[in-house]
């Protein structure tokens, strides 16, 4: 018994380090004066580095380990997701520091809540039980609600947080109700058991179908897919940009993990059904996301709608249903997280002196004032459109090829059309930066570390675009074992 527990604990090492570490950060932060807040930041970064190290040390091999009575799984998928989540959160912390300090929001709680959200993502990534998934999701969502409301003096942020909280609570309830129905039919919360027990007889059970519908609705909300997207634009716009950066990046990995674990691993027997549901959500998201983004003058809002469109693409990978499709969805999500942290990071960087840079007007003529960062944004936008040789191209390419392999020609065409529409607003950003005049934003006075990391972040997209094989192989290995 004791030895089983200790191997369990060793398996869950990253989560344990994070949980203990964040309590330490919390306690240390309480005793710090405001002028020493950087200590909290440094501690958090060290903690993240430690987790990354423990993840790398946990074996890059393909072994799959179950722990805690089968409610925890450590497999290649979970390790890839966790590694990216840790990196994404570290990047967010790094970008956000000057931004927060310029607004008097540089509080230790930002880091603590960020670490709590990361814990939620890690839990989601290696959850192998509906109960654990739900707990991970709540850890993630609760931290995000609080982070959105972080700036207490902004009525916009308060409104966004309220909306996010109420809708999020309904989504959690929906998800929970779906889980309880699935549990009612199968008598088990364990994803492995679900996979094994749902046979053909039960697959036709009406309760399971309704349960599935509730589950899909809950997952779609966490992704921000249409018609469960209403929160996204308001939250992205209302939250401080540093928090928008957070909300827009790492949590998508958690949502992906939730979808893969519950739908692909837990309920493959109902595959036909959820593929149809997701296809509808995906098409709606692609169309509405891309069309609505055109009308936005606020960059944060525009990027929110662009996120919705990207989520549509990710869901298409699930619609294909094949390992290639899941692999493509994983690849797309990872690339999307890099793109999102670049583009929101860009806004955070331009705003880090104090004035808020968030409309298209602000970045007009950026090329003349800060050519390097204008170039970075151009690369980001091109990647978002999906033009080779940037990573965004391959992301879309593999989704489309997975769709075509499974004879979803209509969906593939719809996705293509939607991305062509979407290209318009990305190109408009490029045009305004390069050829228009009149904006105020510039990148002067931004700390060196932020500049360097943002450049690395964007150039990583170029690197993946030129040499996609390594990352693709990683995704293939992760998706192969599902």
């Amino acid at each position, binding site marked *: *018994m004791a030895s089983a*527990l200790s191997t*369990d604990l060793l398996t*869950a090492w990253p989560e344990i380090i994070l*949980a203990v570490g964040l*309590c330490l950060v*919390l306690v240390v932060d309480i005793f710090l004066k405001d002028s020493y807040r950087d200590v909290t930041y440094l501690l958090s970064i060290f903690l993240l580095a430690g987790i990354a190290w423990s993840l790398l040390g946990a074996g890059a091999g393909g072994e799959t380990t179950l*722990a*805690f*009575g089968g*409610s*925890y799984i450590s497999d290649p998928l979970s390790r890839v997701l966790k590694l990216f989540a840790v990196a994404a959160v570290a990047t967010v912390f790094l970008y956000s520091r000057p931004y927060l300090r310029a607004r008097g929001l540089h*509080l230790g*709680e930002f880091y*603590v*809540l960020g670490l*709590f959200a990361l*814990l939620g993502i890690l*839990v989601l990534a290696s959850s192998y*039980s509906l*109960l*654990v998934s739900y*707990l*991970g999701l*709540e*850890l993630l969502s*609760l*931290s995000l*609600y*609080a982070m959105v*409301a*972080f700036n*207490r003096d902004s009525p916009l942020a308060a409104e966004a947080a309220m909306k996010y909280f109420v809708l999020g609570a309904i989504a959690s309830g929906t998800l929970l*109700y779906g889980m309880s*129905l699935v549990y*009612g*039919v199968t*008598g088990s919360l364990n994803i492995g058991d679900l996979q094994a027990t749902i046979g053909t007889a039960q697959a036709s*059970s*009406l*309760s399971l179908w*309704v349960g599935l519908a509730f589950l899909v609705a809950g997952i779609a909300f966490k992704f921000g897919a249409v018609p469960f997207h209403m929160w996204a634009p308001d939250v992205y716009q209302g939250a401080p940009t540093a928090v928008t950066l957070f909300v827009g990046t790492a949590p998508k990995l958690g949502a992906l993990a939730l979808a893969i674990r519950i739908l692909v691993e837990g309920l493959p027997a109902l595959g036909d059904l959820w593929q149809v549901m997701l296809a509808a959500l995906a098409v709606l998201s692609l169309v509405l996301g891309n069309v609505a983004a055109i009308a936005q003058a606020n960059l944060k809002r525009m990027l929110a709608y662009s996120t919705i469109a990207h989520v549509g693409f990710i869901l298409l990978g699930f619609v294909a249903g094949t390992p290639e499709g899941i692999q493509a969805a994983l690849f797309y999500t990872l690339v999307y997280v890099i793109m999102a942290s670049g583009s929101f990071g860009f806004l955070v960087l331009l705003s880090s002196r104090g004035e808020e840079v968030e409309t298209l007007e602000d970045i007009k003529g950026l090329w003349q004032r800060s050519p390097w960062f204008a170039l970075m944004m151009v690369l980001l936008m091109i990647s978002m459109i999906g033009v080779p040789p940037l990573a965004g191209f391959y992301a879309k390419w593999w989704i489309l090829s997975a769709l075509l392999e499974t004879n979803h020609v209509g969906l593939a065409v719809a996705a293509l059309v939607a991305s062509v529409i979407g290209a318009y607003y990305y190109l408009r950003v490029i045009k305004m930066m390069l050829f228009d005049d009149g904006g105020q934003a510039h990148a002067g006075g931004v700390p060196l570390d932020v500049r360097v990391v943002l450049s690395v972040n964007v150039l990583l997209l170029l690197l993946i675009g030129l040499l996609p094989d390594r990352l693709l192989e990683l995704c293939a290995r992760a998706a192969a074992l599902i």
Partner: protein
Amino acid sequence: MFTTFLFYALSTVLLAAAIGVITARNPVYAALFLILAFVASAVLWLLLEAEFLAIVLVLVYVGAVMVLFLFVVMMLDINVTTMREGFLRYAPVGAIVAGIIVLELAYVIWFRSDGLPVGAQLVPRDGAYSSTEELGKVLYTQYLYPFELAGMLLLLAIVAAILLTMRHRPGLKVQDVAEQVKVQRGDRVRMVQMKSESE
């Protein structure tokens, strides 16, 4: 026989209380009905010999959660009539949703009982069996991971609540209790020796 009677009596109370929660005009009454519902379900649990769950339900929900709830309800000036304005308009939708949920639950129970006759596995335990102990064992072995995660979730809730409500406003006057306690007589009172002035 006696337990069957108790079961139906308590279930009636529970259902009546639950209906009372949503129909009571006064929010304080609604909260009190909710408390009654909790107590009734706790006693139902006692009938199932799940004394730990029963007592914890009373302890946590009735003893702690509902006290704070009642507290808030009494402090707020809730105008029930405005809250009820849209009631008739939304009632059909609500009724449909509720109907679906009821049908679903009934169906799930029926589906489960298809294979497993309801109640067949309920064997009363002997006196030495302690559900508290068994629950503890399961919580700290099989469900250790979710249990600890739930703890982290509560910690997060505390941190978030404090972050959103506590603000250090500059210029706020606060008493430092340590300073107050440290005060000596000499700091506040000066003994003066002087001659009497009235001669």
